[in-house]
């Protein structure tokens, strides 16, 4: 029987684990940071009963009629302090009496809150003066899980995290081993070279379980982010995504000899995707002319697929295009990396 101690692949994978687990900073960035980010953004963008908008009125009568509107928080201020509060952004609108019994609204029309305040204030003023609405209306409020910002955010953060941990994990470890001539020392032994590369994949996939579990579990437990698709499809997406980004990381690190060089390359590759691939806001916001390029990026494909799976319950047939894009990046990056890879 062959013990673990004598299996080179097991030993190389163990080395990866040990190096990773004994680096507290890496643990923080991979496991803790995404959860903190999700928590922070989830709280900042939480859905709550629409906030009352702060406005100011100059006269007591005007303040009284404006207070009839529940969505306005009205302060009564002097003209001078009212103007200061408006300039400082503490109130969205200032209502003052105009000539001949009219009302003057001061606000910034470039600010959506100011425009909303203008509509609400005017409605309150007109109603207080006796205007009746000719048509009756009713509201239905949309607040169920799956359409909130946090629901949009968790798959985006998951994709970003899969990209970062794969590219950073491989890039730094490989260039560091090359720089310290550890790689050269290893290939001077009978170690099969494929095992060296395979050990990165194995350790990456094992850590993936914790990494994905932490973020998705946090979203599901704390914010009730839905998981409408099958977990098998979700796992497949995470594994394929991680493999594609690992191959990309291998390609980025295939020739660099210094940490500075590889850091620059990694940022060059990842930065555009952080911005355009729809992590924090929809990729559709970019011009139509750019959409073919953006949707062919691996992070866009992964995040689109994760969102479709988690929020809409999409399965393999609906995700074929994204799976194809990820597989394409995997094959091309890996083939190129093997061709370019510098072992010393």
């Amino acid at each position, binding site marked *: 029987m062959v013990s673990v101690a*004598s299996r080179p692949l097991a*030993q190389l994978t*163990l*080395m990866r684990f040990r190096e990773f687990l004994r680096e507290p900073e890496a643990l923080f960035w991979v496991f803790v940071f995404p959860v903190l980010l999700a928590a922070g953004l989830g709280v900042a963008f939480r859905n709550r009963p629409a906030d009352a908008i702060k406005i100011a009125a100059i006269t007591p009568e005007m303040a009284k009629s404006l207070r009839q509107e529940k969505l306005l928080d009205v302060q009564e201020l002097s003209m001078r302090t009212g103007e200061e509060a408006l300039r400082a952004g503490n109130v969205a609108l200032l209502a003052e009496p105009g000539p001949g019994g009219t009302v003057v609204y001061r606000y910034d029309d470039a600010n959506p809150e100011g425009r909303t305040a203008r509509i609400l204030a005017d409605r309150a003023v007109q109603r207080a003066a006796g205007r009746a609405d000719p048509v009756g209306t009713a509201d239905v409020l949309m607040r169920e899980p799956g359409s909130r910002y946090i629901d949009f955010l968790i798959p985006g953060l998951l994709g970003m995290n899969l990209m970062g941990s794969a590219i950073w994990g491989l890039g730094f470890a490989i260039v560091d081993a090359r720089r310290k001539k*550890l790689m050269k020392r290893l*290939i*001077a032994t009978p170690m099969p070279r494929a095992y060296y590369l395979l050990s990165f994949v194995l350790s990456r996939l094992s850590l993936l379980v914790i990494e994905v579990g932490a973020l998705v579990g946090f979203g599901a437990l704390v914010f009730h982010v839905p998981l409408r698709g099958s977990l098998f499809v979700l796992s497949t997406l995470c594994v394929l995504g991680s493999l594609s980004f690992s191959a990309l990381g291998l390609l980025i690190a295939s020739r660099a000899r210094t940490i500075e060089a590889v850091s620059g390359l990694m940022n060059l590759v990842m930065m555009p995707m952080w911005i355009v691939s729809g992590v924090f806001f929809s990729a559709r916001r970019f011009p139509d002319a750019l959409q073919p390029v953006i949707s062919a990026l691996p992070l866009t494909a992964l995040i689109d697929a994760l969102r479709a799976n988690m929020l809409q319950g999409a399965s393999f047939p609906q995700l074929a295009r994204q799976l194809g894009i990820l597989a394409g990046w995997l094959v091309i990056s890996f083939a190129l990396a093997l061709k370019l890879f510098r072992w010393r």
Partner: protein
Amino acid sequence: MRGDARPFLTLASFSRDTPAVSDAVPQVALRVRNLRKTYKDVVAVDGVDFEVRAGECFGLLGPNGAGKTTTVEICEGLTAADSGDVLVLDMRWDSAAGEIRQRLGIQLQETQLSEKLTVMETVVLFRSFFRQGPEASAVIAQVQLGEKTRSRVGELSGGQKQRLALACALVGDPAFLFLDEPTTGLDPQGRRQLWDLIEQFKAAGRTIFLTTHYMEEAERLCDRVAIMDHGKIIALGTPRALVASIAPGHVVEFSAGNPANEVDVSAVRRLDGVSSVRTQDGSVSMNVTELHRAVPALLGELSRQGVPLTELRIHSASLEDVFVTLAGRRLHDELRS
């Protein structure tokens, strides 16, 4: 022929379970013929020939940049030569790399092992690559790191790291060890500890090929030495024979006079018992066969010329003097300037 090589495998520290026939070391462990390697426009190795015999400690001595590391790395199968032939343990890299790697123990210059791993984890990792060899703990004990088994590599001193690197070279119970500048950067104590270890391997019958730019290291450890400079081997033989052939007896070095009142070196050359004279940076160095005649003659000649003596040194000839005689400069000039 193979049978003759068996005595070299009588290892003191390790016993082999089943000595297979393929473990036999041929009488010539390494044969290098007409090796050449050029990097861009720099000729690193310029037609090198030598042999390392089974069971000997062979040293490649030369200044930094002489081409030693390139030569060794070609022999280790890490660098491809432009031309020439390398035969390691009767095998060639292009046809039997895997088999050769199983049987070589290699220590590279300046390898930094992973700082996060412990000594034991590092040795177990390297041990896993080899078919056979001693237990990791036995190798660790052999390089005297037994107390550091659980320490992280990052916590070791320079000498301890170097001994750990040696342990990683020993895990496959190699018949043939390559050590590339094993003591560079160590303090005198660390260097002596490593020398003791290397002497143990020699006593155990292992073949060793080491490079160094410390002549005292080569003199102490090596059975035979090749001196390398500018990509060529400029001398090869036992340290004793090299010293005897080039610089018999002693070396006298002196500085005298000043630019306005220089020594007439041609007169010094004709002195009794002086075999050769070189001048460098205002100091004169003479190889002397008969010290008791040459020194008084030198002093007499200087006072006859009326040139004041400012410095006088006498020492037994060493490999350093062999290098100076052949290369026309000191081994460590680039370090001193």
